[in-house]
């Protein structure tokens, strides 16, 4: 039996609140052994981050901590500030979520990497620069000697997170805490960072506690998993067991509710309601109000189930843990819109031709613009009535700018946008205002897209009032109908946005977008800011609305799983251009462009067994500077099939032989990509 490196027993954390203190962590116990990766997974408000901060002793002084946290048998709770500082410096490495704020912007990266060790006297000052270079080499940063002399702003997001990992591991800590280490990163960079993290873990054998909300990340990295809900651990087990046989209904429901890009399409089964917050814990089992397994049984409402051993070697906090869900992931395919094929007799609802949006960069005394960021550089696509077209890509690929310029929120440099045959680009302001009635925008962040000082019914009615259609459309009654349509109730009239949860706010945003009875909704990452269990609710709502109101969607997202779930056709964007577009199933099952292939293989799959079998390409490098794109095909520097022609002339979109088109000189299935050019890329079986 291995010795536990860290053991947490009955940890409780409360924060001040009125009238009583708010319990954020309620009796968490777990152990972590040497060479183990433990993932703590949960939604916001589940107490997962607070648990990590408690271990590192980084909670604010207002927090009250009780229980026991033992590192190498030594109690950390009650240790003096001086003692904790010493332990943090030597024993615990902490990796924060946002690499852009973790590093001190005025300190050279090399100095920061070794700062703590020099401070704690573990490293002579003279050896620091050499050690910094060594550390950067360990986290695979190229040109470490030069990079060590640079400042954080000269690093890209992925490199910064690498540096942070290097920093966390610099002191050879006994344990590493990583709080959502890849949430702020793009999917191809996430894959690189996760791989680096697990490689360094294997090399150092230091255990890692990884906090995340992403079940895909869990499946790819964890050895053991602890699921948190309402401040407690509700289930633990090995990663394979958790995904194959979840005992707790929350874990089971969570797995049912997430869209997956590796599976044929299916209707999501959302968890009803929204996650409990520490201030609103129900009596009894905190999951009971949302639980499908409870079926009216009283016991769940009276007392909280203890965390007990389950039949497969893990633990689960459910009175009825033995009742495994009968149904596994169902594979009922969602219909693909009939008009999906291009060239159909129907006229396109939206037609974008050669759209370009350039942002000039003004330099010098005369403010002359001699170069420009080509945010969108020649995007063309058609959207037919009743279908969903998705634009997918990593940050900075121009997908949001495309959406905004279609909506008229962004000045178009070149190209045309036609809605229903009408040319929008050179319309008068008044004409444009009228035309906009037929397309509406749903924003990513429901927290900032609703006017905080207006009651919600006025927010939903605002478009009608602006177009002076309020009474014509039926006034109050119509607003109430809209509320019902999106799953809200009339009783909520008179309340303000701040009183609602994120999911509810997004429903309000959708109701507002629907109020003018538009034909087209532009959905800009509508679920990206929401909790996993809420995403499914909103996605299902969008699907239902599309059927009911025969809407067309232009869906903007970075999440490939969500896109697969909702789309009929998908266009993949890279650096301002569409590199491949195809019908959904063709794109996911027969991707032809190397970038699409790397995106798909970088996106984590919430299934550990399947995930291990998957063939993966981990592309090197990051998205180039859009101000100074590489010549020829913009993906060529990262591409494993790139040849001289790729570096010379930009490829055009050409038919792939399936339903779509791809902008690549060497399109083809992923299997054919082996060896010769693999210098740039790693193939990991």
């Amino acid at each position: 039996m291995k010795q536990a490196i860290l053991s947490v027993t009955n940890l409780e954390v409360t924060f001040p609140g009125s009238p009583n203190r708010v319990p954020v962590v309620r009796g968490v116990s777990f152990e972590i052994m040497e060479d183990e990766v433990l993932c703590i997974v949960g939604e916001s408000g589940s107490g997962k981050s607070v648990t990590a901060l408690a271990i590192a002793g980084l909670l604010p002084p207002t927090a009250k901590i009780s229980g026991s946290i033992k590192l190498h048998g030594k109690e950390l709770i009650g240790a003096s500030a001086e003692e904790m500082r010493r332990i943090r410096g030597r024993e615990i490495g902490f990796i924060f979520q946002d690499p852009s704020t973790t590093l001190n912007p005025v300190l050279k990266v090399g100095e920061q990497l070794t700062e703590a060790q020099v401070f704690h006297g573990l490293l002579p000052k003279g050896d620091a620069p050499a050690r910094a270079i060594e550390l950067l080499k360990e986290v695979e940063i190229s040109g470490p000697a030069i990079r060590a002399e640079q400042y954080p702003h000269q690093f890209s997001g992925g490199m910064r997170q690498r540096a942070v990992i290097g920093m966390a591991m610099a002191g050879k800590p006994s344990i590493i805490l990583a709080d959502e280490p890849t949430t702020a990163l793009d999917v191809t960079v996430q894959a690189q960072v996760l791989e680096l993290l697990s490689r360094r873990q294997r090399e150092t054998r230091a255990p890692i506690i990884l906090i995340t909300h992403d079940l895909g990340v869990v499946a790819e990295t964890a050895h053991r998993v602890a699921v948190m809900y309402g401040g407690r651990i509700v289930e633990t087990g090995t990663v394979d067991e958790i995904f194959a046989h979840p005992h707790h209904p929350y874990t089971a429901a969570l797995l049912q509710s997430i869209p997956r890009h590796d599976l044929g399409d299916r209707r999501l089964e959302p968890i009803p309601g929204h996650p409990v917050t520490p201030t609103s814990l129900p009596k009894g089992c905190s999951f009971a109000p949302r639980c499908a397994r409870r079926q009216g049984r009283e016991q769940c409402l009276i007392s909280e189930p203890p965390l007990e051993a389950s039949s497969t070697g893990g633990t689960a906090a459910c009175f009825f843990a033995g009742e495994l869900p009968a149904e596994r992931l169902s594979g009922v395919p969602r219909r693909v819109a009939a008009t999906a094929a291009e060239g159909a007799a129907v006229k396109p609802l939206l037609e974008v031709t050669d759209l370009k949006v350039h942002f000039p960069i003004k330099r010098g005394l005369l403010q002359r613009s001699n170069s420009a960021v080509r945010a969108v550089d020649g995007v063309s696509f058609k959207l037919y009535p009743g279908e969903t077209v998705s634009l997918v890509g990593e940050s900075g690929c121009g997908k949001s700018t495309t959406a905004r310029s279609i909506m008229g929120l962004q000045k178009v440099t070149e190209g045309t946008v036609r809605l229903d045959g009408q040319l929008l680009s050179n319309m008068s302001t008044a004409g444009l205002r009228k035309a906009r009635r037929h397309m509406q925008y749903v924003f990513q962040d429901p927290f900032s897209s609703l006017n905080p000082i207006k009651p919600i019914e006025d927010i939903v009615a605002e478009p009608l009032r602006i177009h002076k259609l309020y009474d014509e459309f039926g006034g109050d009654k119509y607003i109430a109908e809209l509320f019902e349509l999106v799953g809200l109730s009339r009783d909520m009239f008179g309340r303000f946005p701040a009183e609602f949860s994120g999911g509810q706010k997004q429903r309000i945003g959708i109701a507002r977008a629907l109020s003018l009875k538009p034909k087209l909704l532009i959905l800009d990452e509508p679920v990206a800011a929401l909790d996993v269990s809420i995403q499914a609710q909103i996605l299902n709502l969008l699907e239902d609305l599309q059927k009911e109101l025969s809407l067309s969607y232009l869906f903007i997202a970075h999440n490939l799983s969500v896109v697969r779930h909702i789309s009929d056709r998908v266009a993949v964007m890279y650096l301002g251009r569409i590199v491949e577009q195809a019908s959904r199933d063709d794109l996911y099952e027969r991707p032809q462009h190397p970038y699409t292939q790397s995106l798909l293989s970088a996106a984590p799959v919430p299934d550990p067994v399947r995930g291990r079998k998957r063939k993966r390409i981990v592309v090197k490098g990051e998205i180039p500077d859009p101000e100074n794109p590489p010549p020829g095909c913009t993906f060529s520097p990262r591409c494993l099939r790139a040849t001289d022609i790729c570096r010379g002339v930009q490829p055009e979109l050409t038919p792939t032989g399936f339903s779509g088109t791809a902008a690549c000189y060497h399109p083809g299935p992923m299997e054919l990509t082996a060896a010769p050019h693999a210098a740039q890329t790693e193939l990991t079986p």
Partner: protein
Amino acid sequence: MKRLHFMMRNIAALMGYRGPALALIFLTIVVLLAIFADVLGFDPFKQDIIHALEGPSAKHWFGTDELGRDMLARVIHGARTSLVTAGGAVTIAAVIGVPLGLIAGFFGGWRDGVIMRVIDVMMALPGILFAMALIAVLGRGQIAALVAVGISGVPTFARIVRAQVLTLRKRDYVTAVESFGGSSTYNMFNTVLPNSWPPILVQIVVLSSVAILLEASLAFLGIGVPPPQPSWGEMLRAGKSFLHDSPTYAIVPGVVLTLTILSFDTLGRGLQTVLENPRRSSAKPTTEGAAS
């Protein structure tokens, strides 16, 4: 109705802090006395030469001045002068400054350039100097003082509103109104302006104190409100000649002036705290979706 509810809640929140609460009580008393001075029978003009320059007594709580006029009555009526000047000045400053800031911040570009350069020029002139120049043109009188103080308050309003609008302009809910076809004017006045109230309100309170001080300074220099109309600054000026004979003459208006300005400032700071954390006391928003 909703406005009233908001106001009541903010006032309730203000009363939770000791300093702002005391300031609010003091100012309420001053305002009420100033409004009802005549009803309460305070006559600032009734002379009683025999009892000139007396100290505080049961009959004259604050003593009398060199003409035997009741200082209490004069201080209360002086409050009226101060408050009217402050109110008028703040109104002028806000009515001109807020739309300027709104336009500059919302549209940016050349409008912003032109407006802000004009504001910069105005900022470069010291308020009191500008007021003196204006009084020289308009002649001595309450209106002149009021206009002068008001105009010198325009730049701060414009700048504060512009800064606020610049941050709001980027918010999704402003873009949202644009996306469903709201005009710029609609957006400016129905979305951006109502969300800019907190800093404007704070500035109104802060500028009130500045205006009162400026009015008193002008009166002290002898170019404010003409006598016999009572003014705190004027009383300070007259009272300083009798500091030996009747110290209360100068001290009382001085103390009241100081307390009033202090109260306005404290209130402004309190208001800022309250308005910046609007939902501290009411229903807590759920944290779902925010970074956990």
